[in-house]
């Protein structure tokens, strides 16, 4: 090989690296610009936003495809490039630096192309779909942040950088679930999804630590060099698996997925049908060389995936709204992908991911067509659609049929269990809080109000010009007693002058 050829190869590598990076930087830049415009109070008009989004999605799609073409021409050699250091702190022998770089291999490039293609397509879809919608600006800003975050997850060279993208995906996802923020449901479900994300993110952060501890680096190519011991691999892999369960809606975290279908249809499609839901699978694929040595872990992955697939299928078939049905179908398919990953069939998993993402996106985008589809089918059939589900009625004995149906309808009771768990946690924190207040009480030697503290906090700040809020007269007929000593008291309405 001549030096000239080497030079070309290096520059092609660099081009791929920069193209991959541009898929992060372009949306991030657009997001920053749009956000800045919003902050200074000069929010973009719809047309500007549309133009920017259109340009952005076109550019990212081109970047993704070009990178893929170059990568193919190069013969599929992984490209690892470190751009530099974000920040560092050192002294007294210790050194901590945060490096920024990309690692592009076949897996990440497939994801990258998928991301650019779907983000571009769904972006184009959304430009028409959200035309004139209140909050279209927010939608596209969140989409930009999401695209940037997911691209970063895909191309990041180190687990630390991947975590940054992972967080951005979580935040943008929660914001899009709560897109219709004036209603209660989206807000509640966004909080639920975000809580699950955060719990799983903690695991990712922990896995990062384990890796750093074991290999002295979070850079993936460097870590790949030195295989982990089986125990560390199991620990690391377990944490990564846990982190991926949330985003990919695997058991026991599959409950949030149907609830996330609160935003505009295209956001549901791209997040919960296509890209976000496969992020967990990607994380596993990306880190596979590190944990593959641990057989127990692989068995666990297969089991979780299989269980999710089974329950998803059962549950999905009892759902009566189209988006919940699609959500469980997606969750089940991702379960299968987990099984494939656990079995080591990485290429199959990758093909499955691509196929599933595309099919599901189209299905979700067409979800509002269900009624018309049924009518058209009936027209073609010339009669009403035959009743489905007879299979279950035949196979399952009557005695447990009701129970099984409710099991499916209530989503395997996961929500029920979660509600019990949350209630228990709430009770625990409340007890702690009461204890805490008693500490204040002890310190101040004044009786503090037990319980929830309505009395303690009911007062609202009032300015010097204000008077107490409308007198809260006791209502006739509503006798509500405080718990505890059983002393009857009206609802406490103390008003304090606090400013």
């Amino acid at each position: 090989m001549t030096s000239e050829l080497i030079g070309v190869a290096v520059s092609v590598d660099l081009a791929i690296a920069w193209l991959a990076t541009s898929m992060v930087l372009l949306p991030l830049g657009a997001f920053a610009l749009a956000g800045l415009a919003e902050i200074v109070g000069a929010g973009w008009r719809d047309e500007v936003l549309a133009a920017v989004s259109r340009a952005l999605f076109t550019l990212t799609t081109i970047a993704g495809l070009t990178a893929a073409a170059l990568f193919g021409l190069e013969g599929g050699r992984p490209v690892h490039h470190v751009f530099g250091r974000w920040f560092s702190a050192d002294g007294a022998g210790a050194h901590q630096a945060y490096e920024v770089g990309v690692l592009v291999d076949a897996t990440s490039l497939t994801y990258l192309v998928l991301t650019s293609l779907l983000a571009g397509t769904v972006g184009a879809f959304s430009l028409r779909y959200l035309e004139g919608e209140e909050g279209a600006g927010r939608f596209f800003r969140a989409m930009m942040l999401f695209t940037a975050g997911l691209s970063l997850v895909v191309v990041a060279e180190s687990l630390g950088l991947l975590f940054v993208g992972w967080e951005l995906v979580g935040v943008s996802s929660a914001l899009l679930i709560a897109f219709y923020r004036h209603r209660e449901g989206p807000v509640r479900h966004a909080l639920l999804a975000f809580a699950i994300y955060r719990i799983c993110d903690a695991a990712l952060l922990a896995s990062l630590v384990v890796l750093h501890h074991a290999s002295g680096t979070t850079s993936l190519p460097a870590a790949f060099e030195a295989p982990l011991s089986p125990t560390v691999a199991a620990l690391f892999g377990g944490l990564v698996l846990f982190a991926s369960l949330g985003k990919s809606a695997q058991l026991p975290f599959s409950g949030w997925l149907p609830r996330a279908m609160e935003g505009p249809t295209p956001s549901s499609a791209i997040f919960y049908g296509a890209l976000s839901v496969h992020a967990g699978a990607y994380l596993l694929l990306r880190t596979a060389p590190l944990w593959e040595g641990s057989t127990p872990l692989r068995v666990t992955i297969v089991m979780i995936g299989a269980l999710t697939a089974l329950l998803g299928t059962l549950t999905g078939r009892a759902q009566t709204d189209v988006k919940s049905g699609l959500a469980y179908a997606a969750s089940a398919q991702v379960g299968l992908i987990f099984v494939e990953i656990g079995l080591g069939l990485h290429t199959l998993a990758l093909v499955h991911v691509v196929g599933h993402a595309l099919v599901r996106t189209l299905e979700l985008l067409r979800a509002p067509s269900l009624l018309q589809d049924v009518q058209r089918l009936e027209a073609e059939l010339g009669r009403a659609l035959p009743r489905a589900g007879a299979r279950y009625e035949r196979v399952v004995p009557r005695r447990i049929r009701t129970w099984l149906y409710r099991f499916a309808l209530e989503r395997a009771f996961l929500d029920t269990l979660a509600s019990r768990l949350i209630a228990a946690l709430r009770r625990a924190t409340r007890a702690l809080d009461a204890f805490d207040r008693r500490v204040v009480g002890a310190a101040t030697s004044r009786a503090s109000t037990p319980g929830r503290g309505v009395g303690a906090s009911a007062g609202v700040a009032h300015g010097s010009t204000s008077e107490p809020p409308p007198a809260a007269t006791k209502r006739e007929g509503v006798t509500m007693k405080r718990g505890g000593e059983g002393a009857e008291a009206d609802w406490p309405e103390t008003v304090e002058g606090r400013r």
Partner: protein
Amino acid sequence: MTQHDTERLERAIEQAAHLLPTQAPLARFVHHNPLHTLESSPFDEAMVEAAARLGVETYLDEGSYQRALRSGRLLPADIDATLDDVGGDDRPIAAGLPGRRTLRRARLLDVDVPEARGEGVEWLLSEGDALRALPRSIPAPTRGQLEARARRFGGVDTMLPRLFEVCRALASAHAPPRHVGGRLRDRILDRLGVDPDALVHPMLIRHLAAYLDQGVAYWPMPDRDGLWSTFQRLHGAGPQPAWAVSLPDELHAVRGRSAGEQVLHELALRGIPPGAWADWLTGPLHALPGWAGMVHQLERHPELAPELPPTRLVDYLAIRLLLDRLAASYVAREAGVHVSSYDATPRGAGDREDPRGLALELYFTALRSGLGPAELERDELGAALAREVRAFDSITRRGIYHLAYERRFRVRVLDALLGHARAERAERAENTERADGRSAPRHDGRHGGRQGGRQGGRDAPPLAQVLCCIDEREESFRRHLEELEPRVETFGYLGHFGVLMRYEGLTAPRAELLCPPDVTPRHRVREVPGRSTREERDEPTARGETRARVASARAVAKRHRHLARQTLVRGGLVALTGAASAVPLVLRTLFPGVADRLARVSRTGGAASGAQAPTRLHVHREHDEPDASGHLDGYSWDEQAEIVGDVLGTIGLVSRFANVVCVVGHGSSTVNNPHAAAYQCGACAGAPGGPNARAFAVMANAPEVRARLAARGIEIPSATVFVGAYHDTTSDELTYFDDDLVPASAREAFAATRRALARACARNAHERCRRFPDAGPRRAARASLRHVRARSVDLAQPRPEYNHATNAVAVIGRRSRTRGLFLDRRAFLASYDPSLDDAEGHVLERVLARVAPVGAGINLEYYFSRVDQARLGCGTKLPHNITGLIGVMDGHGSDLRTGLHWQTVEIHEPMRLLVVVESTPELVARILERNPRLRALVEHRWVLLATIDPDRDVAHFLERTGFCEHVVEATVPEVGGSRAWYEGHEEHLAFARVTAGRAEEEPGRFREPPYRTARSERGEEADRKDARQPRREAVR
């Protein structure tokens, strides 16, 4: 629990349920007034009652009216005129105070008055200038007066805080009582800020959705035998969420109890006396109005969901009340309060609203009236002012704004109609003069106007006559057709064209009722395969059978694609090969038009589009035996003649038949649109009206029918052929039925008509495009046609068309009254020829009785969906999620949303329908006297009525007090062609006279529009933007 109690309960439930939404499952969406149960009371009162009882909004928000006032859409003169009518007298309400009318007028015209409640008032006062300087809107004399008063206090900035304190004290004494609902949940929400319903609803909605599911779930709920009993069975055992752990025990305790008994038990637990049942039950029923309404609809009309077992509201209540009780006590327990009883409490006894909002209102009223603190402190004066201010609350203000808003539109409409009539008369006189100079007069005078007469010489029949639906979407289509081809006459009749039938399409799975929703058709019409009705009447051809079999197999296969959603194994296989679906995904998303053309080519195997399997309608009935379902198999000759004669007589087409009479039904093709049925023909109950047009043409072409018609005096020449057609209002495509039967003699005329109609479609598409935010106002006509076609197949298009969004007025009269008038697609146009009517107006009565209710249903549905998207409309369609094939939810597990979505109503100006009848007030009054249903609608003012005299250029409007003559305020502008008037405009436009379509020989007459509209365009644009995005209010 006695029989007596149960019956009483049933009555109470029925009474409480009468305000629930009455929307049918979405596939059978029919436009109706969502508050139609209130139609028995006058509109204004009904609006207040609905607002109070259901908590719905019944007018636009004040900001919208104030913006209209700023932009000139609403004029101060309208407010004056409205106040004259409903504003009360102007006697001083107390010594030293102005009169009520003066106060109200000043309040309504003060568009900058800030509004706030509670803490917001404190913030406004502390951060803004309200307590430092006099508002800018105060006129100079009052300002001087206030400054003089302020001197005593040492300056304005000292007096104003003092004044506000006085107002605060007054307001505290006069604050209106606070309303908290009667449910325990309402009181808990009020006091704790936590909503127990948030716990109940997920479980309840899931159960309802599963029970009512019409086929989304692959595995439907087993053993559906009633909501209550299935609920008992399903929840009798097994884990429950934290708030409902005791549910299985509760259910165990009530085992064997019927739903009615359970409801009675719950009512007794809460201590609700039987007299208060109906009132109290409104609360729990309206907690989830959509679902409860659907249960109620299915209880009353089980035929809407034929496969569903009995569905009863009492079952729903039994579940609801039980769950409500569990959730409320759980929330209270968690909050550390003990709920000792579930009793009903008198509403908010002694409790008052936060007075600060009222204080602010009072403060600005005092300033506008030039009153200082000293004046207000005078006892009777302050109290009187406070009472007046309290009485003039938001809904009262909005009611007046609304009347004024409607008045401005009405004045413009009547001005335009009268101005047009005058101009036409003048022109006619001029023409007659000129013609007299040359030859004999061209007009027979009876048909009035200029239709057809110009080109063909004396009394020459026109090239073609086109009969359309009255739908306001056809207004522009008809106008463009007439502009393009002056030799065409158009008529309007309800889109079912008198053929009220049960239609059994060849490929339709079930029969459709193509008639207004309140009619039960007695006849059925079948579509049969084959070339000739007579020959191959009943035997399906072998080809048809094969087709059906193939279709069946395909459908069963597809079923899994669409419904079972490829969950596991099959899904895995599909997904593995799923990369291929990138092609349709990208194509359909990015290039919907191309994808559609490809799909059409692949469907028809490359043949020209529109090639359909030849079928015929089986219209004529041979025997009088009704079939199993009680329908007659077609119409007898007499019945057909009756239908055709009735329609032709009504629209005034009884002579001068052209060679081609096109009967155009309409419908709409959209994709990805759960509300597709709402886009169809309203007169056909939300179905495409093509078959009606087709059947009508078949009848009118039958020699037997024509013979009978001739006997009635309607002679249809044998050269005349009726052709049924179907207009797709979304894609602006026309399809012709049985056009192979057009005789050779009419071929040429038919071809010419077809060309004209096709061009009119293109122009119509062009005009429609001006409204679409993503189409851009300037584009070529051909491109527009492509654009609207792409819209109709675009998955990403939430606004395939604007549907009835622009409806506002209905004109019943000769087309000559409106021909050549640009009505901006806002008018239902029903043809009615008063000169053919009898002295008592029986024809008019029939037309009115058919048009007014249909028009009012559409209009009021739009009205309420627009003014309250949250409760009466279904919000933006973007997050809609089809559930159970019966309706849509917002995202995951919300209430079933009823009404229209935001995308169809965003450009709607909510106004009651103004029906303008070409008749005399006296005749209309007599008709109303005769027809109680019409009278109720008109007298309670759910539609507004005006007349325009057939012979003179005067108009009357039916005020509350009776008919009043309309005073013309402005002349109608004139423009060369429709396009010149609308091009480049997105907003509603003023009506204008279009001189094209009669003046090709006089090109010099083209004029630039003398004025657009009184309101500024920017203002209107701002209005639309504002309506979509709440404005950021500036602080004063």
